[in-house]
């Protein structure tokens, strides 16, 4: 019985990245390693445009499941490595094919010859292997357009690889290959999705959450930890900064007219996040804003809030509809956490009628009567830094109970 002994990984987009390529490949290799490191025996081999996870007896199905979520992989295929000997390849191709074949299924051969010194060219390969299967499998039919089984043969310098299925990867760029940004994580549906999409483009994220006890509860904080954990499942680990925000919120409440408290709150959150970004060498701030969704997300509002920094603010959801955002939140498993009904710092102090079109100059003037600086410094100083690991690896506080 022939068994898959490796998984062939195709890079997709990164294979076009000229001189940065080594860095990209290296980052991808690292993310794969992070996700698979509990499988002992696994080896990762990389070549110019392919990577191979050599299973060494690890459970192929489990490994496949984990690979699905890794950014920077275009597609992957469980594969068998054979010597570049035509007879040996034929025997392996037939054995592999029979593993997938059932009466009535059609097939085609997709051959690729990267090693130009190999005696058979692509057409020869198709012909030779197609013929071999047709001869040995009774009643087998070819279907070039919509085959049930696509037997892929890649002849490379070092060996030939055979596989029968191609699994789509998560796409995007490898984690951390685009630098670091701070994600403002409220606990709602949008911000984890914004974080996820940023990670997909290779950003390393550190989450920032504002905590206002006793106005917001420990459960609201736990909720954010749980959300971060979901993101850590993808990234390997994610830093979460918890900012004490109570005093600032109270001061805002006393000093700023009710319909502008929301604008000022957002401005101060942005400023604090920017300072934390600076301390942690980030280059951008990510938010879950979607244009027009709520009062703080009108263009006027963004204009007034964005005023406090020149750091790039990335808004991956800006043009997305709520329903599309919800769909993504469900696929990344954050939706059910996000809808847990706890107050967060954005909902506790919401005035009954926040300005949907705040004026920048007005908010600047209101703030000019108060000195927020000492409190901002204090908040940044008192920020708690947690390193959140993927779910299964987290310290479990109720350990012995389960």
């Amino acid at each position, binding site marked *: 019985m022939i068994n898959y002994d490796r998984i062939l990984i195709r890079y997709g987009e990164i294979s076009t990245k000229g001189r940065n390529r080594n860095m990209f490949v290296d980052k991808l290799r690292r993310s794969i390693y992070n996700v698979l490191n509990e499988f002992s025996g696994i080896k990762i081999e990389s070549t110019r445009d392919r990577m191979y996870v050599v299973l060494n007896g690890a459970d192929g199905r489990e490994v496949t499941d984990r690979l699905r979520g890794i950014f920077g992989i275009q597609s992957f295929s469980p594969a068998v490595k054979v010597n570049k000997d035509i007879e040996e390849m034929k025997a392996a191709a037939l054995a592999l094919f029979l593993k997938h074949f059932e009466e009535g299924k059609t097939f085609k051969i997709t051959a690729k010859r990267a090693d130009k010194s190999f005696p058979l060219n692509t057409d020869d390969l198709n012909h030779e292997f197609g013929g071999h299967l047709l001869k040995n499998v009774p009643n087998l039919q070819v279907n070039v357009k919509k085959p049930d089984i696509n037997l892929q043969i890649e002849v490379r310098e070092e060996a030939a690889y055979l596989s029968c299925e191609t699994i789509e990867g998560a796409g995007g760029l490898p984690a951390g290959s685009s630098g670091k940004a701070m994600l403002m994580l409220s606990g709602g549906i949008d911000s984890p999705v914004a974080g996820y999409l940023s990670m997909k483009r290779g950003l390393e994220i550190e989450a920032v959450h504002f905590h206002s006890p006793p106005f917001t509860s420990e459960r609201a904080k736990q909720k954010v930890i749980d959300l971060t954990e979901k993101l850590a499942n993808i990234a390997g680990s994610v830093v979460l900064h918890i900012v004490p925000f109570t005093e600032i919120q109270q001061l805002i409440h006393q000093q700023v007219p009710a319909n502008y408290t929301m604008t000022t709150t957002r401005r101060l959150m942005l400023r604090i996040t920017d300072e934390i970004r600076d301390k942690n060498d980030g280059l951008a701030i990510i938010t879950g804003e979607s244009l027009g969704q709520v009062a703080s997300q009108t263009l006027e509002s963004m204009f007034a809030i964005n005023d406090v920094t020149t750091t790039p603010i990335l808004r991956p959801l800006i043009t997305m509809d709520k329903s599309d955002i919800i769909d993504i939140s469900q696929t990344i498993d954050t939706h*059910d956490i996000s809808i847990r009904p706890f107050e967060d710092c954005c909902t506790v102090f919401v005035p009954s009628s926040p300005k949907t079109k705040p004026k920048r100059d007005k908010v600047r003037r209101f703030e000019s009567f108060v000195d927020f600086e000492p409190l901002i410094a204090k908040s940044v100083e008192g920020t708690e830094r947690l390193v959140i690991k993927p779910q299964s690896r987290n310290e479990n506080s*109720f350990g012995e*109970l389960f």
Partner: protein
Amino acid sequence: MIYLDNSATTKPYKEVLDSFMKVSAEYFGNPSSLHEFGGKAERLLMQARDQISQLLNVKSNEVFFTSGGTESNNLAIKGTALMHRKRGTHIIITGLEHASVRETADQLKELGYRITVIEPDSMGIVHAEDIEKEITPETVLISVMHVNNEIGSIQPINEIGEMLKKHARVIFHVDNVQGIGKVPLDLYEAQVDLCTISAHKFHGLKGNGVLFIRDGLRLSPLLSGGNQEWKMRSGTENVAGIVAMAKALRLTMNNKDKHLSRLKSIKTYLMEEAGRIEGVTVHTPENNSAPHIVNFSIKGFKAEVFVHALEERGIFISTTSACSSKKSAASSTLMAMGIPEKDAKSAVRVSLSYDNTKEEAEVFIQAVKETVIRLREVMKS
């Protein structure tokens, strides 16, 4: 004491009781309470749900906590019947089902539903094609148990699921109370929509069970109130019992990985040795039967006489299923298999757990032999 009545209930694992005690004593908060103490209880509940869903290979939002097998079966059947009554009022069950399925169906019959009962073959197994013949556009639910509680026969759940692909509107409920931890069942692969398990059958505590409800499927709740369990089952959660159940399931699955082959060999031993005793007919089929249930009749004795005779020697077995064994009626499963009433009335059930040993099985067989001889002499004189 040799306890061989594990299909009636199992002995709670010590570790399970420890969890129950600790959660009851230290985390007695109501998960719905806003304060941090309630929050802790809620975390426990979530963690238990995650663990159980992982062990069952399903999503955590598909695990609903109930008070046990009877409630889960009632919720699955009545909940489906009520929710989908406009689509149809026909329900199919099998002649092998536990009373909590049978009687639920009877109750719905009184409310105007049409119930079809599919009878098993002489091996105690129902067939997908027999079920398919009865499906009409009115059919909303099919309920089939995975492992029969009286004789241990395994029903072809995968085949029935496969057949139901052609009848996508029919909801498929599986009572897996006896199968869990003993006979593997991939709920997704078998196209199962609803699945019942009960904690005290796998060394958890009485009063806890799960109904798996496939993501997206809607049922009418039986208990209305505070909207716990996503409105599917109101009532303050039994957090301690649920945590204990999560642990029991984990330990059971571990034991399955380690001891399943031993369990199988003990069962084979019991089947073979019992079959050699004069006047004994083994009802549990050799193939397609669970690794922990052996059912046999001893000609000429009422089952309960035999149960009591063994009890004197500290060996505990049962007549038919525990829930109906107090009535002197013959086993409904055996009757459905076409076994004569007289034989059915002398049938006893031996049911194992991973804790039972080969030595216990040997003591049991020896006791049966001696008891048969002794009782025969009593009857003669």
